[in-house]
């Protein structure tokens, strides 16, 4: 295995409190050393002068659609898109066909990923069989097969008693429970955030309270059960406040936000453009402010893309018939820089923390640091390169993003997994 020496980058490793210009030596797939003026015989050199060298980014919320929907995305194509986005590890949601609710499906995903994905893929198992919200899935067996969390993402458990039992089960196996919070009765039939825009456009609303009531319920259940509980793609202001409150009470409650939920509000949608249709929906400006504040004050722990590929045929329909979700892997870093770091809302170190050590800790995976001995997963990005996102060059199989043609300032330069480059902007040194 080759030896790489990454020279003269700004090494940012929040887990170890490091933010300094230094070299990083990668040896035999592991981080060998971090420090100034490192040398190593027969090491290949990557000159990172002017760039940021960070632990490999972790996206704890993606949909790779395999098995079952490989026309939208596969573990291979999704893994390539992740690498191109600067991510070295992803956690994939179980809403495949069949649903990942058994050790068999988990094993299939783990094996496919091992053979085909350039990045680490961690499966998330279903909470209930078929994610139908009724009978608990084989959570323990799936844990043995490799899941790192449970979730019925997209089809939230509506029955509070089932959710309580799920939390107790998750706790027994040391797994976090991740919930897509949406009271399905309150959101039923909704197309976009309920507010002035939905009323003006004559589209049915998904009220912020449909998220809030389930976050409230779950936090109360997390307190009763002592489970580790995580709110997926938080979007509504009262939900952020409640997670903040839960943390102050010392509960094991965390949350993530997607780049699009801090980058866009409902008013940003061109009329009836299905590339702006997702769940939770783009919220009001006051909610965007609240999630941004949550990123600043710590109510929100992680940035996750909720990468949700859909083929063009499904997005080329009447707005209300289009499926929910957008792709997100390839512009997550740039959006975080544009909306959070460049305007000075959070320091760069905080952004890296939100994309590395924090999600790794929530999922309890040994990732997200440059500690010597750790896996040599490294994300290298810059802060000032001007570039334009062209969705037609995306490595995802799908094209459903509102950021086509968007001009960014700063973004990923290279991605290393296990000491090997899996993606480089300059296309060099790829196997």
């Amino acid at each position: 295995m080759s030896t790489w020496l990454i020279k003269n980058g700004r090494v940012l490793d929040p887990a170890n409190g490091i933010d300094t210009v230094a070299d990083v030596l990668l040896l035999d797939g592991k981080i060998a050393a971090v420090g100034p003026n490192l040398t190593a015989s027969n090491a290949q050199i990557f000159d990172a002068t002017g760039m940021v060298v960070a632990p490999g980014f972790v996206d704890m919320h993606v949909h790779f659609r395999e098995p079952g929907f490989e026309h939208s995305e596969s573990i291979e194509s999704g893994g390539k898109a992740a690498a191109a986005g600067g991510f070295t590890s992803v956690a994939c949601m179980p809403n495949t066909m069949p649903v990942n609710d058994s050790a068999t499906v988990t094993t299939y995903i783990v094996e496919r990923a091992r053979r085909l994905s350039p990045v680490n893929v961690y499966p998330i198992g279903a909470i209930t069989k078929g994610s139908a919200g009724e009978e608990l899935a084989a959570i323990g067996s799936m844990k043995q097969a490799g899941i790192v969390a449970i979730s019925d993402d997209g089809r939230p458990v509506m029955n509070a008693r089932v959710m309580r039992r799920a939390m107790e089960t998750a706790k027994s196996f040391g797994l976090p429970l991740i919930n897509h919070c949406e009271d399905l009765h309150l959101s039923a039939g909704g197309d976009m955030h309920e507010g002035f825009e939905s009323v003006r456009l004559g589209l049915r609303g998904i009220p912020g309270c449909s998220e809030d009531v389930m976050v409230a319920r779950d936090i109360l259940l997390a307190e009763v059960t002592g489970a580790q509980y995580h709110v997926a793609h938080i979007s509504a202001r009262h939900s952020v406040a409640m997670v903040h409150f839960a943390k102050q009470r010392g509960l094991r409650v965390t949350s993530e936000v997607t780049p699009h939920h801090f980058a866009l509000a409902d008013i940003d949608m061109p009329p009836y453009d299905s590339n702006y249709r997702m769940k939770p929906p783009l919220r009001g400006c006051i909610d965007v402010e609240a999630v941004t504040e949550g990123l600043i004050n710590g109510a929100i722990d992680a940035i996750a893309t909720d990468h949700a590929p859909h083929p063009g045929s499904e997005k080329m329909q009447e707005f209300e018939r289009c499926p929910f979700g957008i792709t997100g892997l390839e512009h997550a870093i740039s959006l975080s820089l544009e909306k959070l770091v460049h305007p000075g809302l959070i320091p760069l170190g905080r952004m890296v923390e939100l994309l590395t050590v924090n999600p790794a800790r929530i999922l309890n995976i040994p990732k997200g640091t440059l500690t010597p001995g750790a896996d040599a997963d490294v994300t290298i990005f810059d802060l000032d390169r001007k570039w334009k996102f062209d969705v037609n060059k995306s490595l995802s199989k799908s094209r459903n993003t509102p950021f086509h043609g968007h001009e960014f300032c700063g973004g990923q330069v290279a991605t290393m997994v296990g000491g090997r480059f899996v993606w480089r902007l300059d296309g060099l040194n790829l196997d």
Partner: protein
Amino acid sequence: MSLLGIEDLGRPEIEAILTRAKDFQASTAKYDTLKNRLLVNLFFENSTRTRTSFEIAAKRLGADTISITASASSTSKGESLVDTLNTLGAMRPHAIVMRHAASGAPHFLARYLPTPIINAGDGTHEHPTQALLDARTILDNRPSLEGLRVAIIGDIAHSRVARSNVHLLSKFGAHVVLCGPASLLPAQLAQLAPNVTLTYNIREAIQDADVIMMLRVQLERQHETPFPPGDYFKFYGLRLEHLQHAKPNVIVMHPGPINRGREISSEVADSNRSVILNQVENGIAVRMAVLERVMGASQQ
């Protein structure tokens, strides 16, 4: 040039259509303005008056028309909306009149099709020609829209007629009072345009009204029971005794189809205050003006 909604239409454009419509009123003469032009009426939702009205309007202007209803079209065979429209577009009509149950369906298509689209009602969004014919009808009874008090009563939440009327009336300085139970009257409607107020009380809405516009409860768009059905007529149905609170020369309008005994009593619907049939009549004149504008301009 498509006509997708009133919201983005300027006052001069609206005035031009209303003035031109006056020329077409009270005459059933045939013109050859749109001779050799083809109009496709594409209705994905049931409609009697709007479809017929567009068809008659087109024929009076000398256009060829073909009307397609969704049940008879390829959509029932699984063809997507874009493919259906592209197929029709390839037959080179000069305009497509479209009604669809999905809000924004014509806006979505207008992005991909070169053919001008006239929105004949999209979901719960807009119904621009209805608002135009309503304005024509009001102006047949009043010198101007400026300063009029117009009460729109009923299922506002699901009404494309209400939205288009709010935009149009507000642009011309009328005061619009929207009335219905809270579940059918989202508070955000008050910001839809200037001079719009909301009330849950029908008496308050009707007080000193110049125009009362009644709306049907759109059961087909509701996915629940947002108001006790048995109470609806009692609290939101227009009856003769209400009219005494309005201006003496108040006019009562309804876009149809009317449900007697649900949102309006027969006595009111058939009273001399009702201009419901004038609205239907004006529909043809207004749609002639719209077709002339859309189909004439596109072929210069």
